[in-house]
């Protein structure tokens, strides 16, 4: 069968071992990129001609917002794979994603509100990006709530996978409906990301932060997946070998 390599690749012992070995290869570049991005964003990048130094929140807000979407998509894809091919490792990936995504969604919300505060004169404005982000947080919370409502891990995996897929179909619909709604009621958002006229000294640190956050997510995922894989295994012999001190 053409699928056997796939299954071998995704077999719990293999994943456990490879994930362990791969983690530093993602974690250290992530650390380097993030530190470089922080220096670039906080020190080297020039102030914005309109928003002055306040725009520097961009360097943490944008990667957080990016993470919230990336993680949700990853979670839904993994959930779909797990559901269709009944693959435990894929469910382990989906289960690992939710808390990471939810926490970065919170970060995106807080940083977004702090960014907007001086511009709007209030900490909360029904800005479409922030509103979508808030709804995304509820989607994450619903997913985690559903997952924790089941005692049986397998059923939790499969039921929440359906929710993740339904959610990922809905995320763009929700986003565009919120943008549509906002365009009727308010002036467009203050936050312009990725303007074409952004100078390289501003843009490069942003890219570094985005890449660093993505790698960081990868590293977190690997650590979490190892744990989730272990808790999904019913005392197979490989665990004994893998955990031998």
């Amino acid at each position, binding site marked *: 069968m053409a699928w056997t390599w796939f299954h071998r690749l995704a077999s719990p012992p293999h994943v456990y071992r490879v994930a362990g070995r791969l983690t530093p290869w993602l974690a250290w570049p992530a650390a380097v990129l993030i530190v470089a991005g922080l220096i670039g964003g906080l020190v080297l990048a020039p102030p914005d001609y309109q928003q002055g130094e306040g725009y520097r929140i961009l360097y943490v807000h944008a990667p957080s917002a990016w993470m919230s979407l990336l993680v949700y998509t990853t979670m839904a894809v993994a959930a779909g794979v797990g559901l269709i091919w*009944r693959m435990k490792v894929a469910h382990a990936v989906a289960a690992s994603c939710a808390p990471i995504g939810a926490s970065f969604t919170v970060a995106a919300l807080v940083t977004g509100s702090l960014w907007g505060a001086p511009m709007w004169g209030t900490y909360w404005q029904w800005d479409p990006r922030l509103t979508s982000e808030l709804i995304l947080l509820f989607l994450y919370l619903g997913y985690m709530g559903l997952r924790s409502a089941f*005692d*049986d*891990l*397998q059923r939790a995996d499969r039921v929440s996978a359906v929710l993740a897929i339904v959610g990922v179909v809905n995320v763009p619909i929700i986003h565009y409906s919120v943008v549509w709604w906002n365009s009727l009621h308010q002036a467009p958002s203050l936050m312009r990301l990725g303007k074409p006229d952004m100078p390289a000294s501003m843009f490069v640190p942003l890219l570094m932060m985005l890449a660093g956050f993505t790698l960081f997510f990868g590293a977190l995922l690997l650590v979490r997946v190892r744990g989730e894989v272990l808790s999904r295994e*019913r005392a197979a012999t490989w665990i004994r070998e893998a955990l031998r001190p």
Partner: protein
Amino acid sequence: MPDLCLKGENVHLWRGDHHVLRGVRFQVEGGECLQLTGANGAGKTTLLRTACGLAYPEGGEITWCGENIRKDMHAFHAQLAYLGHEPPLKAELTARENLYYWVGVRCRVERQELDRALERVGGDHWADRPVRTLSAGQKRRAALAGLTLMRVPLWLLDEPTTNLDVEGQKLVGALIDEHLQAGGVALAAVHHELAVSTGQGLQRMELTVE
């Protein structure tokens, strides 16, 4: 060799960390009934639900007529009748209405057939009462009437004699007898020996708790 054959090969199933079905094997052919016994929690219901495709075995496979039941689930389901713990009846509808909707989702039911099936289980005088007013045994009998109406070769019965009096238990035995004589296959989880006539190809299997 008869045509019909339900076969379980090395079936494994976990519930959480509990290994419920541990390599179960069975084979039931046309005209045979497999009687499952075992203590509570031994996995009788789980085995029945796995055999009908509701639960997914993590190891092994269930085949019907030589094909994995998951290959064409709809076709397989069209050939089986499953009676669970609870008779699938609505308290607000009469027994007759219940049967009409329940069986009607699967196959067309004629009025006379319904009458005959209800008569067979001794339900002619309560067939038009709301199920709410029926006793547990009468509900069970109504469910048995539904079973006979489905005209399917494979019966999967979970505690079919629960709540039934002696007459009712005999009735279950007679129904299974007839089903087997007609060449059907039956799998029944029971606490007491089924009252089927001997020499009918009754197999027994006992499941154990881990």
